[in-house]
């Protein structure tokens, strides 16, 4: 039985059993190949997720969950006809059945025009950052951080989560590529609430021990208290200072819709390589070399992730490619394949906007009249090509007048083109406060600072 070996308590750094399982599945594919006249290829991923999440609301823990799941995902090609299968059942006979079914299924398909072949040997990429203590964190350890966060606002209502995750993955292909890696992540994400307002704070790290839940709780409580007596303001275009969480949301949309090579090949991306599409102050990297980085060394096709500039000094430089789009565009994969990415296309990971030289307070000090936005909520694209999106502010929106924060305002809805907002001349300053910022689509994805922008188009108040 493969399963007993695979699931034993593991050294978080030890991915050998997962790699053995991937090798075994490759062998099963080769056995099928020996029985067929056609050429059978396969890419095999074996991943193990150990995730614990402690969730709190109304200042107490109400949900506390743990997961330990091993998943085997196989892409099979028979003479270029592909199919993908996955399972959490890693017993040998189940895997043999699944491989046989996948080969049968693939034979029934038309030729996949963009199948790039099984991944050949390609090196191992930047090693994943892993903190063993975080990988093995207990519910008690997470509860202590929750308590620290809650205690920072005793008269307020707190809600949020603390979670810890170990992600291990092994990749093997019939073309001989073998690679494995592991990474850990810990996040605290919470709000404090008054009767009329809420304030948030976020922190993410490879290591649970680096999270300061008390500091996060104090920041969230401060934002909530300062928002208690908010006033509604008229919609319009305001100069803004966007906090890192708000910036992370913007960068995520640019990454998914713009720097995605499949979108670009299909004419749906704004990106024009070599063109000055952003303010010279803007540089956006895919950077797995950052020491704070959370993530695996390779992508879903086993391609090592490397550092490259998506935007450099305002000039669009590079798109994210997987092996499918690289083949179509006569380019090289940048290691940005995602699971199930045939439809969505490659998406940049390890997105990082390097810091500027302005402290957030300095940026605020330069604003005559504008808004300080902590984060955005429920942002959705209106036009993918121009990256015009709508959404709302949340958890702390403040009025800036004559260089000082002058009270809070009610949440506002915006409709704004993101490329336009970061366009030439529109970026007044880049903050020096870069860190992992948790945009609304998840933690541990984007490292970025605050931004001071010339204009942001607010179309109405959240209350009507």
């Amino acid at each position, binding site marked *: 039985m493969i399963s007993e070996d695979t699931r034993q308590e593991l050294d978080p750094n030890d991915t050998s059993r997962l790699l053995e399982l991937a090798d075994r599945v490759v062998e099963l594919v080769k056995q099928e190949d020996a029985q067929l006249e056609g050429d059978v290829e396969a890419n095999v991923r074996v991943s193990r997720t150990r995730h614990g999440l402690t969730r709190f609301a109304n200042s107490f*823990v109400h949900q506390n969950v743990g997961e330990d799941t091993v998943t085997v995902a196989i892409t099979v090609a028979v003479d270029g006809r592909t199919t*993908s299968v996955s399972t959490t059942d890693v017993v040998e006979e189940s895997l043999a059945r699944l491989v046989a079914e996948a080969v049968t299924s693939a034979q029934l398909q038309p030729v996949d025009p963009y199948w790039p072949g099984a991944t050949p040997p390609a090196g191992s990429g930047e090693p994943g950052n892993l903190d063993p203590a975080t990988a093995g964190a207990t519910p008690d350890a997470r509860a202590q951080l*929750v308590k620290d966060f809650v205690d920072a606002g005793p008269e307020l209502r707190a809600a949020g989560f603390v979670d810890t995750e170990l992600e291990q993955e092994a990749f093997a292909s019939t073309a001989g590529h073998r690679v494995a890696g592991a990474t850990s992540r810990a996040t605290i994400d*919470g709000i404090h609430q008054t009767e009329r307002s809420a304030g948030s704070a976020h922190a993410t790290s490879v290591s649970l021990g680096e999270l300061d839940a008390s500091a996060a709780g104090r920041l969230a409580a401060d934002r909530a208290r300062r928002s208690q007596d908010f006033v509604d303001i008229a919609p319009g275009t305001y100069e803004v200072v966007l906090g890192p969480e708000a910036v992370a949301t913007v960068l995520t949309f640019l990454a998914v819709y713009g720097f995605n090579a499949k979108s670009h090949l299909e004419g749906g991306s704004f990106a024009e390589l070599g063109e000055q599409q952003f303010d010279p102050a803007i540089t956006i990297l895919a950077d797995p070399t950052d020491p704070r980085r959370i993530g695996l060394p390779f992508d879903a096709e086993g391609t090592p992730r490397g550092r490259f500039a998506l935007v450099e000094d305002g000039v669009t430089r590079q798109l994210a490619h997987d092996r499918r789009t690289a083949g179509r565009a006569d380019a090289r994969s940048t290691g940005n394949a995602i699971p199930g990415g045939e439809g969505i296309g490659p998406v940049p990971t390890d997105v990082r906007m390097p810091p500027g030289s302005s402290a957030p307070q300095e940026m605020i000090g330069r604003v005559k009249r504008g808004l300080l936005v902590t984060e955005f909520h429920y942002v959705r694209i209106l036009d993918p090509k121009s990256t015009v999106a709508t959404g709302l502010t949340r958890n702390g929106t403040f009025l800036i007048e004559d260089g000082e924060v002058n009270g809070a305002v009610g949440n506002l809805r915006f409709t704004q083109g993101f490329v336009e907002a970061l366009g030439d001349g529109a970026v007044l300053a880049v903050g020096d406060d870069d860190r992992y910022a948790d945009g609304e689509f998840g933690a541990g994805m984007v490292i970025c600072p605050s931004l001071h922008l010339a204009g942001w188009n607010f179309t109405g108040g959240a209350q009507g």
Partner: protein
Amino acid sequence: MRDAGDEMFDYARDAVEGALAAGASYADARVVLRREQRIGAQDGEVETVRYAENVGVGVRALVGSSWGFASTSELTDVAAGRAGNEATATAKASALVAGSGLQLADVTVAQDHYETPHQEDPFEVPLDAKVDVVVGATRTMSQVEGVAVATAQLMFWDTDKWFVSSQGHRIHQHLVESGCGMDATAIGEQETQRRSYPQSFGHVGTGGYEIVRGFDLPGNAQRVAEEAVQLLSADPCPSGELDVILGSSQLALQIHESVGHAIELDRILGWEAAFAGTSFLELEQLGRLRYGSELMNITADATIPGALATFGYDDEGTPAQAVDIVRDGVWVGVLSGRDSAHLAGLPPGGMVRADGFNRLPMVRMTNVGLQPGDSSMDEIVAETRHGVIMDTNRSWSIDDRRLNFQFGCEMGWEVVDGERTRMVKNPTYTGITPQFWASMDMLAGGDEWFPWGVPNCGKGQPMQVGHTGHPAAPARFRNVRVGVKG
């Protein structure tokens, strides 16, 4: 003679016993085997043939004020018992930041079996036949001049659940869900226009392959593609305060976002405050608050044949049922589970479900839909002096209390003096939930009522994707802010 189902019940029982032995006051467990198939094509070529099989056991243990939950994809008696033990230990860790103890509302303890009525097992339909549908439809769309990208998808789920609780539940369910969708994208100089069918993201219902056959993707491909191209040269949607006539699939999403999430009791109680948000509704307003006009009658009904959120029992073992949510415009009901219902002093609604074995069951929408009216789309248009028909969702955004929304649709038609006139592009509308629903003054009847399925409702941490249903018919809303621009 024992069958495979008995073995699965045994694993669930092992998990429950593990949790109780560790000190839980209550425990339940689900062994879930979910098979999923997705077949996608783009521009006349197959793009994705994907099959996923997820199996494992998830166990929930109640200790004091917290649920502990643990799951494993290893199906052995030892692993199941260990997961039960871990669920209780996890719940106990919560005591450091404890609240008042949770209790469960009483429900009938059932031992039962339920299966989705279906005619044609989608997993038994030959794969090449399914591929032909999406390849053919996308080939037709991509041959229309001006279409840049054409995609089509089929999606199927086959789920077995074996549920056991420490109170004696023993329920097996076999759920079958099928769906399909396609879209054509035309790309202009600075814009993209998209048309999809039968709605954005496709439609999914409970049932077999007969659902796919009923929508006839190949037969609609030409029209859908031509409409996408036409949109590039259409006039922009007018701006201002106009009457809005929503097609049924857009109204389904309107219900989902501005009613369905707002009436979730866990949101009302603040349990989702940090992520999904809360609700503008307060429990003391139940039975008194005017949610909309007297035409507004909303029911959460998990028994509608063919609707996506139709089942026998929820993931707490509570029977599927129909619950009044809004009656004659007045808010009268919520979506609840056993714990939230007990806290609120309400009967449990059977609305707690999980996204697979490795997720904690939580309050989810069932088929939250609008009861049909007595008008028709033709009558509504004829009665409208100046308005915009909007159909098929393109974008959606709403604030964390479910008050302020902005929706964009794929396509619109201006209505002038009772006549449908020019096509307009980028139609958007925005509003405040109770004001918007109060403006509904015409509602189409049963012939145009359809139980649309939404297969991608995100909620919870870790994130769960829920399958919800939203029956709706076309309706008119007066003096709505239309054509919001960036």
